[in-house]
């Protein structure tokens, strides 16, 4: 989940990193008050969870509290990329000697956080990394072993910093790394990290993203920031279909049958198991299929949950058939899922043999499952049929003709 800039700066402050003065405002009067507190020139920034603020006019400079109030009134009424602003951040306009970048991001390939530091702050780190790779220091660190200041020192020194600058920056980057771990972040970025004329450093802008699954254990932080459970903070608001998927999953504690993402295809997917969802989704597309949805099912959901998920997918406008596919399951029962999806078809008035393009779930209780599938004349496959082959058969069935050859072997 993403945080607004004003929240991200609050998290940075909580981590013990100095930030520029300022505060959040939801009205022009509040913005005036924040500017008066700063007692100097300010920058008024729209608080939206999207980029392109500067270009859209969502960032304005003000020399007086009155100007801050005037600018904030305009910014508060300005939607950026379809996002209405939550408010404005009225921030001290600091006299910057040099801009730096400090960030920690989760490296999904190494399965470790990676610390990044650059002496070229204020611009996208991706751009710096591409055009000036010698200006980016980086280093992975463990989520298990204690973080050492030496690790931060190495990354900062890699771009040529030494002396008092290095000494002042090490604790800041160390605190950022610790904050990343403490709050289950996937991204913790200060850009720019400004060096002032007196040599001190302050975080002028910050960007934080937290692992969504960490929300329950980060309730204290979220409450402090005033982030309600109803705020998903995802890239887009969930659709009605997706919310209905959440409701299916929430109906009882057994297993998972949800995490639905809506697409516009005609093949409904009831898929899952140990990364199987992603593999199967890609396999369907590789064979020329058009998924109507992504979802996750596993952990031995009840018949009612499997039924609810299948009903939801089958009821989606444009869905002709569903493919029920998982990798080999050990903690999910084949017969229970089979009962659920067949029940869904029957309760919606469909012939399961017609609506279920393929059922490919091998594993626990598969003999019982296969008996059920045979009883209803449903095409099924055991573990001798690969996920890709099962996806190909499903696509072939829905297209009513030979499927497009796979994009890759």
């Amino acid at each position, binding site marked *: 989940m993403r945080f607004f800039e004003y929240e991200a700066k609050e998290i940075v402050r909580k981590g013990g990193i100095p930030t520029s003065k300022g505060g959040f405002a939801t009205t022009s009067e509040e913005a005036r008050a924040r500017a008066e507190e700063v007692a100097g020139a300010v920058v008024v920034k729209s608080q939206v969870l999207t980029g392109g603020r500067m270009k859209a006019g969502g960032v304005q400079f003000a020399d007086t509290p009155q100007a801050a109030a005037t600018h904030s009134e305009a910014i508060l009424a300005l939607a950026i990329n379809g996002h209405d602003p939550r408010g404005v951040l009225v921030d001290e306009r600091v006299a910057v000697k040099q801009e730096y970048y400090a960030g920690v991001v989760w490296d999904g390939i190494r399965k470790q956080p990676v610390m990044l530091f650059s002496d070229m702050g204020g611009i996208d780190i991706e751009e710096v990394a591409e055009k000036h790779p010698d200006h980016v220091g980086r280093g992975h660190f463990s989520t298990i072993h204690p973080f050492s200041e030496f690790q931060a020192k190495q990354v900062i020194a890699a771009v040529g910093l030494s002396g008092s600058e290095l000494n002042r920056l090490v604790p800041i980057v160390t605190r950022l790394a610790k904050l990343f771990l403490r709050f289950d972040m996937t991204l913790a970025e200060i850009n720019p990290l400004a060096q002032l004329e007196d040599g001190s450093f302050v975080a002028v802008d910050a960007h934080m993203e937290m692992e969504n699954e960490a929300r329950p254990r980060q309730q204290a932080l979220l409450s402090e920031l005033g982030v309600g459970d109803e705020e998903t903070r995802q890239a887009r608001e969930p659709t009605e279909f997706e919310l209905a998927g959440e409701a299916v999953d929430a109906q009882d504690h057994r297993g998972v049958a949800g995490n639905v993402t809506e697409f516009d295809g005609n093949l409904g997917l009831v898929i899952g198991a140990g990364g199987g969802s992603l593999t199967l989704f890609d396999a369907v597309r590789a064979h020329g299929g058009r998924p109507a949805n992504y979802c996750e099912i596993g952990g031995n959901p*009840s018949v009612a949950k499997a039924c609810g998920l299948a009903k939801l997918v089958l009821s989606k406008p444009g869905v002709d058939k569903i493919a029920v596919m998982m990798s080999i399951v050990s903690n999910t029962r084949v017969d229970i899922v089979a*009962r659920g999806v067949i*029940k869904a078809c029957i309760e919606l008035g469909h012939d399961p043999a017609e609506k279920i393009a393929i059922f490919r779930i091998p594993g626990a209780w598969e003999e*019982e499952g296969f*008996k059920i599938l045979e*009883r209803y004349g449903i095409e099924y496959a055991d573990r001798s049929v690969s996920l890709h082959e099962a996806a190909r058969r499903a696509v072939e069935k829905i297209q009513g003709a030979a499927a497009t050859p796979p994009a890759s072997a």
Partner: protein
Amino acid sequence: MALFIDVEVDQAVASDASLAAKLAEVCPVDIFAQKADGTLQINDDRLDECVLCQLCMNAAPQGSVRVIKLYDGNAVLGPV
């Protein structure tokens, strides 16, 4: 209406309050409950949730509770 599973319980068991309480306690998917008078109630809407665990069969005298697999030619679930 259950599609996959049916359960039959001998009248002697169904009318025995202590056995009814035991069946309600052991079933992990709440197929059994007790009526106000203590006799056994079978929740038809829960039958398809049966996980074939046989706990009900073991909780009552042998053969007095029968779990029937409707999808398997009405086969009666037997001891593993």
